[in-house]
């Protein structure tokens, strides 16, 4: 089965367009592709540092420190954990605007197994002061997120999972502003990344059962959209979060924090409980095992109404 990496590679074209206008843009990779046409058009501004995440982020921080606008292509599970201290200290504490584009996030790694599942990156990255964390839901949104990242004053982590084009998806993208992608009034489903596609399918399943579900695309995990969460709690009440991530610390964690502070809403978090996916399976089967496919989401949402 084809992984969703093609959407990461597609950013090479977006970055080339951006780099034509902005001479400060440089691109770093770690043996995950040559990102043509960028590397062909700007060979002197493309650096593949090999399989060395800590060095990769340190080098990118140095480039940013010296006035460049570095974009980094790096595998989500490895860059988020192996280079965590460089992300925290060299980019966060030292305030260097490094932009990380991280494919193979969530469960996209599928049958490659838990070494290649990035199911803690949202929690890790969102702990870093000054870090913006984006998790786009479809390929067009991924490109919008990449363009938006260049405008953010500070480091940005863009998490790319097994995303698919969403038909009729609105074109506006604002960092920190969740998108109501389906309206509804009985239950709110707050999803991020590839889970948005599953949440939309769950909305349709629920509709057939007479349940009206609002679906929000939480494409920004940090800063989290408190207003949209508060509105869902006030106007609807029951909320289900969906993410390819541990239920602790990611979208579910962020929403739980907001709801607790507001003293509002009821929450059920879908994601990985405190365990790895040790069964070997394809991506769609792993979603089922993890309870993150559309029928599981619909069942969880329905259970909130009992």
């Amino acid at each position, binding site marked *: 089965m084809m992984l969703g990496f093609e959407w990461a590679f597609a950013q090479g074209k977006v970055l080339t367009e951006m780099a034509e206008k902005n001479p400060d843009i*440089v691109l770093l990779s770690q043996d995950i592709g040559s990102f043509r046409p960028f590397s062909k058009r700007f060979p*002197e*501004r493309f*650096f593949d*540092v*090999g399989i*060395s995440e*800590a*060095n*990769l*982020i*340190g*080098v*990118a*921080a*140095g*480039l*940013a*420190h*010296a*006035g*460049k606008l*570095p974009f980094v292509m790096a595998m989500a599970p490895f860059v988020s954990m192996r280079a965590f*201290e*460089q992300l925290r*200290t*060299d980019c966060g*504490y*030292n305030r260097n605007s490094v932009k990380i584009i991280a494919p193979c996030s969530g469960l996209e790694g599928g049958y490659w197994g838990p070494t290649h599942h990035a199911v803690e990156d949202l929690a890790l990255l969102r702990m870093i002061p000054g870090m913006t964390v984006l998790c786009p839901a479809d390929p067009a949104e991924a490109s919008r997120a990449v363009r938006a990242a260049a405008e953010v004053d500070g480091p940005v982590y863009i998490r790319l999972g097994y995303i698919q084009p969403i038909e009729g998806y609105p074109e506006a993208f604002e960092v920190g502003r969740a998108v109501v992608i389906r309206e509804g009034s009985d239950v709110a489903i707050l999803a991020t990344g590839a889970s948005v596609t599953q949440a939309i399918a769950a909305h349709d399943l629920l509709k057939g059962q007479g349940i009206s579900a609002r679906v929000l695309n939480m494409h920004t995990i940090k800063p989290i959209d408190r207003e949209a969460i508060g509105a869902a709690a006030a106007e609807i009440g029951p909320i289900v979060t969906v993410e390819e991530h541990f239920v602790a610390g990611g979208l579910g964690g962020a929403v739980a924090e907001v709801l607790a502070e507001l003293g509002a809403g009821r929450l059920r978090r879908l994601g990985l409980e405190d365990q790895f996916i040790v069964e070997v399976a394809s991506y769609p089967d792993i979603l089922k095992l993890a309870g993150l496919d559309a029928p599981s989401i619909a069942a969880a949402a329905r259970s909130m109404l009992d």
Partner: protein
Amino acid sequence: MSDPTLVRALEHRATTLRKHILTMASGGQQIHIGGSMSIAELMAALFFHFLQVEDGERPRDHFILSKGHTIHTFHACLAELGKIETGEFSTLGQLGTRLAGHPSLKAPLVEFATGSLGHGLSVGIGIALAERLDGSSSRTVVLMGDGELQEGSVWEAALCAPRFGLTNLLAIVDRNGFQASAAVDRILPLDPLEEKWRSFRWNTQVIDGHDMEAVVGALERFPAEEGPTVLIADTVKGKGVPSLEGRARAHFTTLTEDEVNETLTTLEVE
């Protein structure tokens, strides 16, 4: 052969830096004194001869203190550069001070906040790449400790710099032979260190880090024709403090009044 007047002036400067560090380590204040003392000649040569610390005739050079715990020598340099008053030394670590136990962006001329070992060389590579892209003559210097070389990230960076042919990058290893708890050789030996750097394709020089003529000479040989340069500077941890030289206690301690006086006497003789 380096200019003898310059060498004498820099030797005097190194002694002054050591006196400043003594002040910081007295009165019960514990500091990372051993590694601060061992880099006095290196820092004197860098900050009062080699580096353009601010934009001037040349674009400013870059300095990353990757062995961040020896920030005290940097603070001493700041005083000698007129960036802070010596009276500020006593504020070290107190609320509102600019002087922290590791490089803080609050202090003047600190480019990059370090402290966790093994970060500086990669950052230096990024800076050197940016300067080269800009066609600048700016140079980037990264000062590391020998214990620090036990961090794997250093060797990722060591592989990386020659790959990109960073002639404008100078790494310096302060080989004082000790790390926090014991001699490097007792914890995790690095030898053969010179061969390691050479095999990683660095222009490698080994010098006596307390011989100012050798230090200045090595800096004057930079840059090499092609590729990055590393200076392995053999030094003594706690250099100049008789009761600390070459002892594990030198890593992090305070000095008694007697030790301060004994050291001052020794430094005066030199």
